């Protein structure tokens, strides 16, 4: 392994700056009533970690049940509730807010040289909405749960189940508003709050990715909201919009639901892609290859993302013509995704690559996302989809994208910016180990599921034929390893808050504006409004800066 690029200040003299956004004010209220985007990001970070662990525990239960072919750990009804709540919590309370509400919240203003997001109160409101929704979701779980699957499919959700559809729906509705407010805030901030010299094409690609994801949040989420309202009204007073006995069409619900929920997949993955652009540039010491192409591919994914929703409905009785069109459009999404992967790969070419933890996660992302994306093309092909849909192939596919892609990117980002957020380094060796463990555990968990899917094992059942057991045992064993891989960062990151090495302002020698200020930053971010006088990812500029500093200090 080659030398690292980490440059830490002399540990015997280095101190965390006395005045920073964490020490500025004390007391619980100063956090709960804060308008500071950095503090809100920390609040979000703590809360999504909490929900991640609930969702993770449910995943553990699912895998444990599937260890044996019979439904023996829990009743089949309970199993339905467990996988439903796993989906609801992981999607609406972890993946959707994961990178945007934590890292995006923290770093978008820093990256564009602003003092805060444009609407700090709305930002805080979005966290409160998120918490209210989350508490409601936990309440529904405690009082019996819901067993419709996270998709609330009608008429099951409106007519046939007696579980907490309404409260869960309300929780998702409220969480949706939290997400709308986050997206809205980002768009306004990126448009109106950039510092002098920060043109659109000097913004880090992280900001571009969030801009694209925000468009999806703002345009998609309200459609989910109205779909949920209609389900709720149908369930309570019995309006007939989705009820075939009255002339309504359950397929309309599918259209409205997936009009949000397909773009939601890109809401989840795009911010992760933004993280990858940052880490890959920093740890190969090169400007991201094809900056403009990567920037526009984010927007292209956002735009195409709105025209592919019906590929979730190929077996639900949509016409052959729309199947053809949506199949073609679905494959079109592969193009901007591939543009990103290829450009990141070209960035590596002739770069000075080092293998710090964020970079290991980044490599994990690239491999796993590519597999997840390509299997997405299989599924976009209508013929293959009809064979594979509702099997474990689907489960494996979206876990490769969401867990293998997004969660890897999230962890890459958390490690990458941890020194900036806390002022302290995480321990390098053990975190590299955690990254490798996660990668191995992930593949062991989800790769067998591709095979199970092609063999025909259906999803969402507590029991399965005994011949599938070997692969399921592999999968459950992998889940255990994966669990360890996720537990480790929690432990050592918490440890590092007190005992980690002092990071200094720019441990990675990265070029973003966020690295040119103290860590942790001041409440007002920049003492003086910065002026962006260079392109982003300009490592020569950084070198000159460092020389200048040395000269002036010397």
């Amino acid at each position, binding site marked *: 392994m080659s030398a690292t690029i980490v440059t830490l200040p002399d540990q015997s003299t280095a101190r965390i700056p006395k005045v920073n956004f964490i020490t500025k004010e004390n007391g619980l209220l100063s956090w709960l009533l804060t308008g500071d985007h950095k503090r809100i990001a920390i609040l979000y970070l703590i809360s999504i970690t909490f929900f991640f662990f609930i969702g993770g525990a449910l995943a553990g239960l699912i895998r444990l049940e599937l260890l044996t072919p019979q439904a023996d750990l829990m009743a089949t009804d309970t199993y339905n509730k467990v996988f439903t709540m796993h989906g609801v919590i992981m999607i609406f309370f972890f993946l959707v807010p994961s990178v945007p509400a934590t890292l995006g919240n923290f770093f978008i203003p820093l990256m564009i040289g602003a003092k805060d997001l444009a609407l700090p109160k709305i930002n805080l409101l979005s966290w409160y909405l998120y918490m209210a929704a989350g508490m409601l979701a936990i309440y529904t779980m405690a009082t019996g749960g819901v067993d419709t699957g996270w998709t609330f499919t009608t008429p099951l959700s409106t007519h046939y189940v007696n579980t907490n559809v309404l409260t869960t729906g309300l929780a998702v509705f409220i969480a949706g508003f939290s997400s709308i407010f986050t997206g809205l805030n980002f768009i306004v901030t990126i448009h109106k709050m950039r510092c002098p010299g920060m043109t659109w094409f000097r913004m880090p690609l992280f900001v571009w990715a969030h801009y694209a994801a925000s468009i999806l949040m703002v345009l998609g989420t309200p459609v989910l909201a109205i779909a949920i309202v209609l389900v709720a009204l149908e369930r309570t007073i019995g309006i007939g919009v989705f009820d075939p006995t009255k002339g309504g069409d359950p397929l309309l619900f599918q259209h409205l639901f997936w*009009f949000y929920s397909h773009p939601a997949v890109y809401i989840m993955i795009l911010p992760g892609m933004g993280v990858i652009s940052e880490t890959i540039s920093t740890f190969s010491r090169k400007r991201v290859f094809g900056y403009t192409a990567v920037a526009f591919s984010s927007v292209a994914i956002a735009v195409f993302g709105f025209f592919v929703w019906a590929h979730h409905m190929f077996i639900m009785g949509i016409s052959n013509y729309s199947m053809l069109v949506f199949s073609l459009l679905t494959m079109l999404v592969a193009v901007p995704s591939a543009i990103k992967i290829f450009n990141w790969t070209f960035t590596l070419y002739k770069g000075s690559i080092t293998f710090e933890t964020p970079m290991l996660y980044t490599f994990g992302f690239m491999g796993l996302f590519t597999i997840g994306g390509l299997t997405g093309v299989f599924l976009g092909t209508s013929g293959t989809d009809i064979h594979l849909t509702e099997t474990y192939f689907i489960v494996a596919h979206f876990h490769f994208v969401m867990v293998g892609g997004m969660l890897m990117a999230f962890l890459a980002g958390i490690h990458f910016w941890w020194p900036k957020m806390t002022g302290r380094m995480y321990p390098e060796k053990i975190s590299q180990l955690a990254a490798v463990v996660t990668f191995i555990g992930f593949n062991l968990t989800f790769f067998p599921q591709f095979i199970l899917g092609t063999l025909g094992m259906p999803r969402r059942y507590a029991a399965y034929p005994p011949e599938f057991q070997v692969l399921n045992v592999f999968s459950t064993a992998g889940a255990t390893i994966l669990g360890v891989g996720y537990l480790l960062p929690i432990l050592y990151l918490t440890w590092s808050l007190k005992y980690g090495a002092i990071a200094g302002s720019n441990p990675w020698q990265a070029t973003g504006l966020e690295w040119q200020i103290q860590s942790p930053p001041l409440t007002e971010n920049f*003492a003086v409004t910065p002026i962006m006088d260079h392109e982003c990812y300009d490592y020569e500029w950084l070198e000159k800066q460092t020389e200048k500093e040395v000269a002036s200090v010397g």
Partner: protein
Amino acid sequence: MSDSTALAHAEHGHEEHPSYLRHHFENVEQQADAAGFAMWLFLLTEVMFFGGLFTAYLIYRNWYYPAFVQASHQLDIFWGTLNTAVLITSSFTMAMGVWCAETRRRSGLVFCLILTFILGIGFLGIKTIEYKEKIDKHHVPGFHYSLQSFTNPQSDPEIYEKYHDKPLALDMARHTEVYFSLYFVMTGMHALHMIIGIAILGFMIFRARGGAYTNGHVTFVENFGLYWHFVDIVWIFLFPLLYLISRHQ
């Protein structure tokens, strides 16, 4: 800290700092700009929200055209038109309110807001009259829904005299329930937005009397005005779709 504060102050020089300028904005223009932009984006989300309903309406209207025509005969054009007039007038008073705020006329602003408030309540009052009619005739979708007026139009003489509807086949008559589902959801969602708007209006009247909004900081009034006009425009679409089109076929 003291250093950075001093620097930040030096940076701003001698510019005047109105008290309503939030710390993270460079100047008042940027602040107003950002707030206005955010409001337009929010209205965009509202367009998408109602868009889902309009989509449903378009699809079902195409499928169940005769049911939609006959069900729309149950709506009273007089009340609908009156309500449209009330709402447009309230938009006018709201626009006048924004103008008063911009030109710093405190009593004018309070007067306009109160008028808007009253007109908003008036709209909801008229809507209640209309809803009551539907409830009385069992045209609220759900358990008590009655097809009587559509399978046997003569049983509903008031409407029959005006339109002389032929009875619908049971199959098609059942689909009037979809029409009324959409009617209640669309006008109900609209009314919900009105109620929220009226609540905010009350809050604004209270604050405007104390001199808020007429000190040069009009962003809140302006943005609320945008919201109010948006709710108005939704009705401008709902009125023809639900009451007017194809009424005489």
